[in-house]
């Protein structure tokens, strides 16, 4: 919460502080997504130290985001703020947390299971991760717009759906390659490749789940 504390002044209002904390939470989601891309890149390049470093960073940020979310939730109720859309905002923060959890889970799975990624699949794994990250980044733009520029929410949500679909296409391609290629001899290895493709793709799926909710919240918030 370093960044928030720096921006908090003696005369900063409760509303302003809450606003800053929410912005910090969305920024943590962004950073976790970008770190995921870096982590997968390092893993595919066999730079294990760099990968573990990024994994630890994601873990730390996810923890910080958890605390921040709990604090925001508490303050929304304790200070009787936005009674009308409080439920929606809390729902949004909770599901946004699922994106972070899934991100953390992906890197943690890589770290624990250490899958052997076959060279002919590396490019697909990287592309899949990049598309998932794009979906998350577009999602946080939509979430920010929900709070400030409601009319822009839809255009960002459309992009979330686009990147999620792209991720699905790559996931399918990757799985087909894994199960048809002669380069992988053991069936268990094929299943392992499929598992990781699905794991990574789940990040985009979670982003899309948040997007679905956000679309409804945006209609409700519209005057």
């Amino acid at each position, binding site marked *: 919460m370093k960044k928030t504390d720096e921006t908090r002044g003696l005369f900063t209002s409760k*509303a302003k502080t809450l*606003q800053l904390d929410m912005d910090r939470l969305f920024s943590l989601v962004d950073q976790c997504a970008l770190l995921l891309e870096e982590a997968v890149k390092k893993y595919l390049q066999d730079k294990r130290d760099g990968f573990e470093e990024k994994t630890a960073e994601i873990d730390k940020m996810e923890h910080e985001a958890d605390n921040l979310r709990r604090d925001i939730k508490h303050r929304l109720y304790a200070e009787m*703020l936005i009674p009308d859309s409080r439920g929606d905002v809390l729902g949004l923060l909770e599901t946004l947390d699922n994106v972070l959890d899934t991100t953390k889970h992906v890197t943690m799975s890589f770290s624990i299971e250490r899958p052997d990624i076959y060279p002919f699949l590396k490019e697909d794994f990287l592309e899949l991760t990049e598309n998932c990250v794009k979906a998350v980044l577009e999602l946080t733009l939509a979430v920010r717009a929900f*709070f400030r*520029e409601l009319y822009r929410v839809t255009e960002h949500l459309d992009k979330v759906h686009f990147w999620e679909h792209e991720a699905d296409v790559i996931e399918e391609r990757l799985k087909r390659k894994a199960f048809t290629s002669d380069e992988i001899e053991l069936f268990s290895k094929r299943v392992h490749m499929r598992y990781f493709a699905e794991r990574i793709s789940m990040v985009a799926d979670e982003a899309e789940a948040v997007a679905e909710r956000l679309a409804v919240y945006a209609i409700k918030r519209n*005057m």
Partner: protein
Amino acid sequence: MPFAGLIFLTSGLYMGWSLGANDAANIFGTAVGTRMVSFRTAAIISAVFITIGAVISGAGAAKGLGALGAVNALPGSFVVSAAAATTVLWMTRAGLPVSTTQAIVGAIVGWNLFSGYPTDQEALTRIVGTWIYGPILGAAIAFALFFVVRFALNRLNIHLIRLDKYTRTALILAGVFGSYSLGANNMANVVGVFVPASPFVDLSVLGVTLTGTQQLFLIGGLATAVGVVTYSRRVMMTVGSALFKLSPVTAFVVIAATATVLFLFASEGLEAWLQGMGLPSFPLVPVSQSQAAVGAIIGVSLAKGGKNLNLTVLRNIVMGWIATPTSAAVLSYVALFFMQNVFMQQVYV
């Protein structure tokens, strides 16, 4: 003031209580129901500003009502007010939309018929006309205000949390304006019939002179305050959570539009200014706050594309125009007969 005078005022006090319990609740209903404003804040603002509006600006609409028929004996005023209050109670129990304005107008016409005084057709047309203009004007103002607010919100890009703060302030300010306008316009329904037979004399306290009429309006205001404190909470919760599903921002539009309608038909200053400019002015007569509010809600609904427009509401408004004054007139006539012939009280001079 003789004790009998106080007894005869009780029906007016009941009307005041009813105004506080129901109409004041309409102002802050959504704000309190959605927990944007606490009941305590709403109650204090309503009580204070309704009373201020009544004392400062209540006389204008009372004159408009007086033109319809000047009930000139206190027992007569008691019966007229009681007949109106009973009609309001009955109609509310029957679940029909009711307006204190329409009830009091019907009751006065009943007194005119009983006493043989002619009903001023011009005054009657003016008042009945506002029952139609009131909701239409409410709808037009709300419709325009909706687009102004939406345009501003789209341009200013205010953060949801900050918007929440501004909305609370706006709801409180609109509530102040709404309470003042309600006191100024609708207090005539509460104490207007007592004005010609007012038992009060001018009173000077610390260099401030309160006329007999102003004292009457002050008492009406206090009765309303009691209505707000004792009963309006329940009504506010119903208004805020069950009847109209409005967001806090649209609630502000509805309250501001309703308050503007009531203000237009109550402000002597505005009337003088419009006349000074050679423009047509609004007649100073009591208008129905609840119907102006329904009009405003319809205005918002139309601005949103008219998807949720409930035509039964419109039908009920038109039914109210006929059913309420007719019932009050009949009741007033019968009660005046009993007051004169059974209780041997002079109900007109």
